[in-house]
């Protein structure tokens, strides 16, 4: 079985356990072992609140160094992540650290690290693994329960896409990777205008009104486009979209992690899918679609 270094990140160990477990389980079905780093720390996203950005940089680089301890059949290390924020921080830190103009800065950061580092760990998103390592055609042939034309709005948010010249993940205006995956799983991807718009993010802490406005306009657009449910890659997006529609009593649309729907179609056990962990109960929809008994 192919082995890839895996960085879950803090939220996936707590609030978003289903995002994490479904990814590990589906990868296993597809012949890939997501091997968690032996030790890891915060990706660095949270440290951006500290005064200097030392910890902000040291933290992600430590994780990238750790990834090189996991064998990747002689190729340079790939580190798989799921959380959009982790993906953003790990990938950009590595890039910034090795920009030619940052030589002195790099030396300073390296002073705080135990091991030397060559910058060769590549941060990839699990969606990229599915597309490039597994292949969507191959994925199609592994489907046990087709998603039966379920109308899914893939919601990407901002962190995976921007700044696009640094992340180079997908078209920042019209990302398609998740849509293409759902197409392979038998679903009907829904096109809408707010795929890449901000969900309000951490504004929910100090300006909840602004955050609520952001999420509602996205959901309104999604529902108008005829979607039956939403899929996200980011714990914070999932939380904002799911929570605020209940709080404002405006909408009732299930918000999934994409790994849950992937797990469902590949026949992952319902316990692992953990469909209880939602504000809007997704089970009626899944039952209606014949995906749950």
């Amino acid at each position: 079985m192919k082995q890839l270094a895996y960085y879950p990140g803090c939220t996936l160990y707590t609030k978003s356990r289903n995002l994490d477990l479904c990814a590990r389980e589906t990868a296993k079905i597809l012949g890939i072992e997501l091997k968690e780093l032996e030790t890891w720390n915060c990706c660095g996203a949270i440290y951006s609140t500290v005064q200097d950005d030392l910890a902000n940089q040291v933290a992600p680089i430590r994780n990238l160094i750790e990834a090189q301890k996991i064998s990747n059949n002689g190729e340079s290390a790939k580190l798989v992540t799921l959380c959009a924020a982790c993906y953003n921080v790990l990938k950009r830190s590595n890039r910034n650290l090795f920009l030619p103009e940052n030589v002195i800065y790099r030396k300073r950061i390296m002073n705080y690290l135990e091991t030397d580092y060559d910058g060769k760990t590549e941060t990839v998103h699990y969606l990229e693994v599915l597309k490039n390592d597994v292949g969507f055609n191959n994925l199609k042939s592994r489907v046990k329960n087709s998603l039966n034309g379920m109308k899914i709005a893939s919601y990407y948010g901002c962190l995976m896409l921007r700044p696009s010249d640094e992340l180079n993940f997908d078209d920042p205006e019209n990302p398609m990777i998740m849509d293409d995956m759902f197409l392979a799983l038998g679903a009907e991807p829904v096109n809408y205008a707010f795929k890449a718009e901000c969900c309000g993010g951490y504004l929910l802490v100090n300006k909840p009104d602004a955050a609520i406005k952001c999420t509602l306009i996205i959901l309104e657009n999604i529902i108008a486009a005829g979607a039956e449910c939403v899929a996200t890659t980011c714990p914070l997006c999932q939380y904002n979209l799911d929570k605020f529609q209940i709080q404002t009593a405006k909408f009732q649309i299930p918000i999934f992690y994409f790994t849950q729907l992937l797990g469902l179609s590949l026949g992952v056990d319902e316990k692992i899918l953990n469909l209880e962990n939602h504000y809007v109960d997704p089970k009626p929809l899944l039952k209606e679609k014949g995906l749950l008994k």
Partner: protein
Amino acid sequence: MRSKPKRIGVFVCHCGINIAGTVNVPEVVKRLKETTDVIEVIDHQYCCSDPGQNLIKETIKQKNLDSVVVACCSPTLHENTFRKAVASVGVNPYNCEIANIREQCSWVTEDKEKATEKAVRIIKTIIKKVEYDEPLTPISIPVTRKAMVIGAGVAGIQAALDIANAGYPVILLDKNPSIGGHMSQLSETFPTLDCSQCILTPKMVEAKQHPNITLLTYAEVEEISGYIGNFKVKVRQKAKYVDWDKCTGCDICVGKCPKKAKDEFNQGLSERKAIYKMFPQAVPNRVVIHRENCLYFQKGACRLCEKNCPFGAVKFDDQDQFIEFDVGAIVLATGYELLDKKMLGSYGFGKLKNVIDGLQFERILSASGPFMGEVRRPSDGKVPERIVFVQCAGSRDPENAMAYCSKICCMYTAKQAILYKHRVHNGEAIIFYIDVRTGGKGFEEFYKRATDEGVLYIRGKVSKIFEKGDKVIVWGADTLTGKKVEVEADMVVLATAMVPSVTKEFAQMLKITQDEYGWFTEAHPKLRPVETLAGGFFLAGACQGPKDIPDAVAQSSGAASKVIALFASDMLEHLPVIADVNEDLCSGCAVCIDVCPYKARELVIAEDGKKRKVKVIEVLCEGCGACSAACPVGAAQQKNFKDEQIQEMVKAGLE
């Protein structure tokens, strides 16, 4: 290696006090006489005056001189004067050289002694130059006095008419079945609100009927070879599947054709048939069959057009044909397209039905357009009550699209808003703009008219456009109030950036340089705006950069006048100060071929069939001398700038 010593005369000009004020001219004459072996050194108050020129001519005759140095002002001023003068008494003009002792000596030096010293040195270098100068004759190239104009929009038509009216034959080529270009798609033109078709069609007909113009429509250039005055062109005449000699343009076939396809002329807003005429006023007034749309070609059955044609003009076995001809000059009038809306992600990728571009709205406004001139929106044919116009959609946007200003959008957006309000009286027109640029005759007044007629201008960029129900929501910023703006519109018109219509491959085939966006580069941005650096190619209209109609027409007439000037003589003169190859030294290494910017050097097998040698294609060489510097064995030499010549000049300057 001079065969026999030259008989050189040196004439030192006082230029009043301009030279003599700082340079001690008599001293210069004395020192030149003492230290060089020239035949004669004479000074004169004003060498360029008639008496001065006569002195030079007389001295040449008396002393039997074969070479002349005039020490005076910059060669840019009087080199021609003196070369003509010496030529009139039988001296080869290329054996007359100027020593610049005014601009580069007397005027820039205060110390008289030093100025005199410098003048002597400068003159000595030029004496060495003429010692080694060869007599040269301008290279004569015959000119094919026939032009080709590529692209038959208003620019191409104008250029073709001007050249044809001067009496020279012109081939006017267009890739579409009809001439007319984008101007034939426009409704009315700013700032006069003239009907575009009404002013263009007479010109189209004139071009068609002109005895000197041959129209070649539905055709594309495959290959161009040769050089100024002598181009060989190969054109692909696309299969029309209709015999245009028999077709009368009666349109009976169009009525019978059962297959519909998107109408390109209406920018995809309506449908045409598989056999179609581009538009009612098409010139030539003929139909073509679009192979990919045609039922017979795709499914093998139908042929209704053939059965119904009263003239037997339909010709299903028609094939692409190649036509070859010679021309002496080529006018590029390939024009522009609009930026593909797919490039504008935040404006809906061109997927939103009621978000259209400027040309689409022109078609909607046009009486022959998809709604017969009534302003209706594409999705459901409803009359839009509020239209948002977005200027700079892809222009002035270096991050996402084009950095340049497309120049015409401010005006045509104002025009479209005015026309919309004329047709839909209670309609609301809102224009988002970065700046309104009204540089042009009557433009500012026209913009004023738009605001007076109630068009609302909001200064700011639009960030997002999306559908909500049957409305289009526009998010933008009003940068004058600093507030976010949300407008619910029935339709949005994007003033998308103008982009060049030619491909990189096409430009490379012609060897015409393009700027980073693909606009053709003119020979000089200020002083040679219609020429290109490749001789014989001229630029007309928007292929050189965004332009409105009057600018395009003016530039086309400019390009035409250049062609006419070129055709004024049946021979071309080409500067003979060009590269040469010493065949005995040339080893055929071909280093010089890569260095040459004009492809003026080619490798040939020598007569003995073994040795490879480089030959200069004289008419292509512009005389930069890069090959001579690159040649490792000194085989490549520039005439009158030979290695030994320059080395002697250096030595003379240092003595």
